[in-house]
């Protein structure tokens, strides 16, 4: 990290990285088709595209995790073939993974130096490593005690540790794979600053993201991939986020959010009073009306998810819940489901779907009682239900006997939505409805949500994406450190007002 870029002999005329005619096939499926890409030193080059466009495959080839089927890579004009990720690292290309790959029981310094420990004779030199880790993280603008175990850090801090670890080797090109996916706005700011610093040192950065405004801000060049082909490479100054979205999807997506008929003063269907979830949320009270879409904004860790989970009986909670005026108590989530509340977890893969099971089993899992006849699960009716769900929610699956884990993120979310709608709930709580989902599918999910509200169901959307809440919701409640600190509606639904409430800091004050 502290070392300068490796002193490889450079042909000053040749770009740092030059990719020509790169193709990759997995069996009969061609996922990359003739990609040409030039990355210059000291530039941030963004790669954008929908899920399945081939971004990840391209990054895996550039970082030596995969071999191309065709085409070549040149570094400083010299053709190279990576034998593996270690080889790519030796040539100065490092990949910062999207998932956090750290050992939670080891300390920060132990993680930073994992696999390349500094030793004095037979004994590891903890002192030097602690100092080195502290310095590396400082250079990234963070301040983390290197002797703390990683399991006790926040997601953002862990990501910083991971970046510090990646940058410990001499590097000339750093690849970031959706680094801001799970960060709050404040943390994202900090990370973008880190990236700007890396660029300032003459290092090249490849930056993959779904968040187009970020790309617009940070990138010098933008390359758009669609269906494994390179659509275009432009200067970032030339393209606006709307253009990027259009190029990614291949059609106009100006209207991401559906039009909704204004909801009048309708009856209250859900009343939550003085709800506390120990350790996460305190004294939260709110009301939900019929046909309404209510947003919950806040920073990660503000207690939104926990409040919802406490309310539906997934966590221990105290407080009063009234459904259509009648007191209700949910000891476990089964009770709230029976009362007509469906909760879709933010953790689609970990808590929403059985990834190693087929679509049918997932679809009917929460509502299996409806399919039982003579003590048996009626598989014919299950199949019919799946056909119906696939049509209704446009779940794109080649075959109906696929496993849930084989679907794309967007289709998994549609399946999860279909699964919970099998309960025919009157209240639907959706936590992070579009996390990790491409724009085309996002638009569909928003349409479904608006459609459910139009049917007279009441919706709560918990999201960290403010534009999504603003575009979709009738009103938005903002939470900060476990408390509901305000409500915005109508003209007051702006990112600025939400951020002020969510952080408790006036916009100008934020460092």
């Amino acid at each position: 990290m502290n070392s300068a870029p490796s002193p490889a002999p450079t042909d000053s005329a040749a770009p740092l990285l030059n990719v020509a005619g790169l193709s990759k096939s997995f069996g009969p499926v061609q996922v990359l088709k003739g990609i040409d890409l030039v990355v210059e030193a000291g530039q941030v080059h963004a790669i954008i595209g929908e899920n399945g466009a081939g971004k990840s495959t391209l990054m895996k080839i550039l970082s030596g995790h995969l071999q191309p089927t065709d085409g070549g890579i040149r570094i400083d004009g010299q053709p190279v073939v990576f034998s593996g990720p270690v080889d790519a690292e030796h040539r100065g290309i490092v990949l910062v993974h999207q998932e956090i790959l750290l050992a939670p029981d080891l300390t920060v310094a132990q993680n930073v130096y994992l696999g390349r420990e500094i030793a004095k004779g037979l004994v590891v030199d903890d002192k030097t490593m602690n100092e080195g880790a502290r310095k590396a993280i400082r250079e990234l603008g963070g301040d983390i005690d290197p002797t703390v175990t990683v399991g006790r850090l926040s997601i953002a801090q862990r990501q910083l540790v991971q970046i510090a670890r990646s940058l410990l080797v001499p590097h000339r090109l750093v690849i970031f794979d959706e680094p801001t996916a799970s960060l709050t706005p404040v943390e994202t700011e900090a990370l973008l600053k880190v990236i700007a610093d890396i660029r300032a040192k003459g290092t090249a950065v490849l930056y993959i993201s779904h968040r187009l405004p970020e790309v617009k801000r940070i990138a010098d060049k933008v390359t758009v991939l669609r269906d494994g082909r390179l659509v275009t490479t432009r200067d970032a100054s030339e393209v606006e986020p709307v253009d990027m979205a259009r190029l990614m999807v291949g059609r106009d997506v100006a209207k991401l959010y559906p039009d909704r008929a204004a909801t009048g003063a309708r009856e209250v269907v859900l009343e939550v009073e003085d709800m506390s979830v120990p350790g996460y949320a305190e004294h939260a009270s709110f009301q939900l009306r019929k046909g309404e879409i209510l947003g919950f904004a806040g920073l990660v860790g503000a207690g939104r998810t926990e409040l919802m989970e406490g309310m539906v009986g997934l966590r221990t909670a105290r407080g009063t819940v009234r459904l259509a005026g009648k007191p209700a108590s949910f000891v476990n989530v089964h009770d709230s489901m029976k009362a007509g509340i469906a909760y879709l977890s933010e953790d689609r893969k970990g808590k929403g779907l059985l990834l190693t099971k087929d679509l049918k089993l997932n679809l009917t899992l929460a509502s299996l009682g409806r399919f039982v006849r003579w003590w048996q699960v009626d598989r014919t009716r299950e199949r019919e239900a799946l056909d119906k769900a696939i049509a209704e929610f446009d779940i794109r699956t080649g075959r109906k006997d696929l496993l849930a884990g084989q679907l794309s993120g967007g289709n998994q979310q549609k399946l999860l939505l279909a699964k919970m709608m099998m309960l025919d709930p009157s209240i639907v709580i959706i936590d992070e409805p579009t996390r990790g989902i491409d724009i085309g599918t996002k638009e569909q999910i928003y349409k479904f949500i608006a459609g459910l509200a139009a049917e007279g169901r009441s919706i709560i959307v918990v999201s960290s994406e403010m534009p999504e809440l603003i575009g979709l919701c009738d009103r938005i409640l903002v939470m900060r450190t476990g408390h509901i600190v305000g409500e915005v509606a109508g003209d007051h639904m702006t990112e600025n007002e939400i951020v002020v409430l969510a952080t408790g800091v006036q916009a100008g004050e934020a460092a």
Partner: protein
Amino acid sequence: MTETAAATAKARRSWKDVDLRAVAPFVALALLLVLGAFANPNFISVDNLLNVLTRSAFIAIIAVGATFVISAGGLDLSVGSMVAFVASLTILFMNSGAVTDPMMTIVAAAVLAIAIGAACGLANGLITTVGRIEPFIATLGTMGIYRGLTTWLSQGGAITLRNPEVQSLYRPVYFGEILGVPFPIYVIVITAAIGAFVLYRTRYGRHVVAVGSNEDVAHYSGIPVSRVRTLTYVIQGLCVAVACLIYIPRLGSTSATTGLMWELQAITAVVVGGTALRGGVGRIWGTICGAFILEIVGNIMLLSNFVSEYLLGAIQGAIIIIAMLVQRSLVRKS
């Protein structure tokens, strides 16, 4: 039109998507039969095979229960000790003369055995779910408890069924035949059929697989995870009780070493049968096949002169490791 499409889809499925892990144990069984026939012509005789199947009954029946426990992501190490404990109490009850009519004695003893088996399983289940103790540790503990109680009941010796009338009336449950097929084989088939129905067809079975596959997803889907888990241990206890009921008439006595290492054999049968040890996949008929394989391997060793039969335990231990390796390599391919 749609029907033909469905038909072709089905045909394609049967060709390409045959799950190798589900088929592997049956292929292994077939290969063993061939090997056995070469090793000793007597092996393949109907009498010998029926004899082998009969002897596999205890492990097969217990392993049906173990399939439930393991599919739900649990483990039960106490089954061997539980056999000794349940069988001992049942014999002591029959000896006590609490019921005078011999037939009624056996019926009452059967009811009692089932109740004790269910209670022992319930204890295992509650310790792991309510007590939140790892199933490995919880059932390691009860394994010691059930075994220790048996030793205490028998005062270190044997507990023997003494009433001759009861003995002669009970004997056919192990030694009897219907249509030339030994009675225990019927018990295996019926137990497995019920197990397969419950695991594959009922809502509860679906819940077992969901809990074993991902506990969080099951919880968020409104499934009572603890109850589902606990019940798998009760099912295991019931299967142990059924195994005891056909075990007692075989020897008519129990001792502190009854059912020793049966937990290892039951788990081996389950794993050899293609059930994933991490949970989420259960194969009842594969388990039965696994139990047969274990018994047949022993039989072949006995009938052939290649390997000393004293190495049986070592061979069975090797089988579980080989089965895991095969399972893993098949996962990679698919």
